[in-house]
């Protein structure tokens, strides 16, 4: 199948190979949560809610010198094209929960909140490829909304390699094509990679190109998130009447 048109260079959805899908982020979507955000990458739509820092529920897990970060990833029954009843705690959800937690824990200044717990819940409303990237981006915005101290914004983007072209931000059709899928999580300003996952195989030199493309995507997302957070802060400031 022609994922990249050889004549025009366009992908199946009309994008260029190094073009991301349209992204949109919004803060404060869940009123009860300490911090929450909704993030869309093309047709992939996720909501993240952060509860914390709060008292640890399970005292045996309490850490005396830092905060406990927990994450849960769940997909709605209607999120994919075929409706599927998802059991809670299936292996894919557990793995993605772990991945999100580890990427974000690298940035949260946990030593400032010992003996407390920070819960990050991510709910996928629509899945069209790149759900774990969208979840990490939404979780970063939700943590910022909750006022939890972080050393940097963690952003994530995926890239692949089809028809001898590196492609940025794969959607579901491109992801299921069987080509490699590289997901990168980046501490944006510090330029440090916190998450790197790949499936299928790639020669080393091409892998470097694809990873670099994903890192560029992460930086673009970080730029956007930074603008949204700045706009939100300006609104809060004006509401305070300063």
């Amino acid at each position, binding site marked *: 199948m022609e994922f990249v048109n050889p004549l025009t260079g366009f992908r199946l959805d009309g994008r260029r190979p190094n073009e991301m899908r349209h992204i949109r982020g919004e803060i404060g*979507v*869940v*009123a*009860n*949560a300490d911090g*929450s955000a909704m993030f869309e990458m093309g*047709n992939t739509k996720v*909501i*993240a*809610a952060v*509860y914390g820092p*709060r008292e640890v*529920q399970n005292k045996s897990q309490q850490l005396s010198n830092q905060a406990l970060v927990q994450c*849960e990833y*769940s997909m*709605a*029954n*209607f999120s*994919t*094209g075929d*409706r599927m*009843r998802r059991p*809670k*705690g299936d292996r894919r959800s557990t793995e993605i929960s772990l991945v999100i937690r580890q990427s974000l824990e690298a940035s949260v200044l946990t030593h400032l909140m010992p003996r407390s717990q920070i*819960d990050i*819940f*991510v*709910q996928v*409303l*629509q899945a069209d490829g790149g759900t774990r990237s969208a979840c990490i981006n939404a979780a970063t915005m939700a943590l910022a909304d909750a006022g939890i101290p972080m050393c940097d914004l963690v952003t994530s983007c995926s890239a692949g390699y089809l028809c001898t072209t590196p492609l940025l931000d794969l959607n579901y059709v491109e992801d299921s094509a069987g080509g490699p899928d590289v997901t990168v999580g980046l501490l944006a300003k510090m330029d440090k990679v916190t998450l790197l996952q790949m499936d299928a195989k790639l020669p080393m030199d091409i892998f470097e190109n694809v990873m670099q493309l994903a890192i560029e995507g992460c930086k673009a997302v970080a730029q956007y998130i930074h603008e949204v957070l700045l706009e939100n802060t300006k609104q809060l400031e004006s509401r305070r009447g300063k």
Partner: protein
Amino acid sequence: MVGLSSGEKHFIRGGISQDLRSDGRQRLDYRPISVEVGIIPQANGSARVRLGATDVIASIKAELGKPNPLQPDKGKVSIFVDCSPTAAPKFEGRGGEELSSELSVALQRCLLGGKSGAGAGIDLSSLTIVEGKICWDLYVDALVVSSDGNLLDALATAIKVALSNTGIPKVTVDLGTSPDDQPEVDVSEEEFLQFDTSAVPVIVTVTKVGRHYVVDATSEEESQMSSAVSASVNRHGQICGMTKRGGAGLDSSVILDMISVAKHVSEHLFSVLDSEIAAAEAAANS
């Protein structure tokens, strides 16, 4: 939810008895309802309803299936509610299962009628394609994104709006040569039949706090309730289903009174919903 101090509890109860609740509403007022349709493009119908801080999403998916042999001329509808952990930390893992199953069963009781399929708010016989062989299976999936009380009303409203947004694809049936053949069905991608939702009821939950009833309680007010009666009322003012929650015993006259309050409030709710649905459909189509 953070616990309430005795001063706050007294304030809530006092406000309700004086017909001035914490957010300024009167006892029988609903919070502002905001409705969006068509938010899940790959579903046959979908809606998102916000009732104050309560936020729920309902999606309807229609798939071809085989009818129940006991009711060959009716389609099937199943309702599933999922409480997302984003609504409250206690819903993480399997914590939300109890509430989800309670809500699913209450919705089924109110919307789907008895075991024989009689009296359903959704006309199941409109879902048959070939009697005894092929019918539409409607899967109604609801997700609670944010919870601030009155989940049952919000869910029923979301399902009603999603049903009004649902388009069942037109099917052309080729019956085959003999009656035992499995018919060939061609599902149209282009043409859709809008679902008839005139008989779909709404649910009104009347919560008893002290000696007074409130409608559309927030989670703070629900924490002070002695019991609640949820009645499902259709457009003609007929009661389609009922659930009583809460341990306190109620006198039968009180229950009848609460039902008549629910009936009275439902008229207003129907008119608000009709205008909201029309506005949302117009916004979605523009």
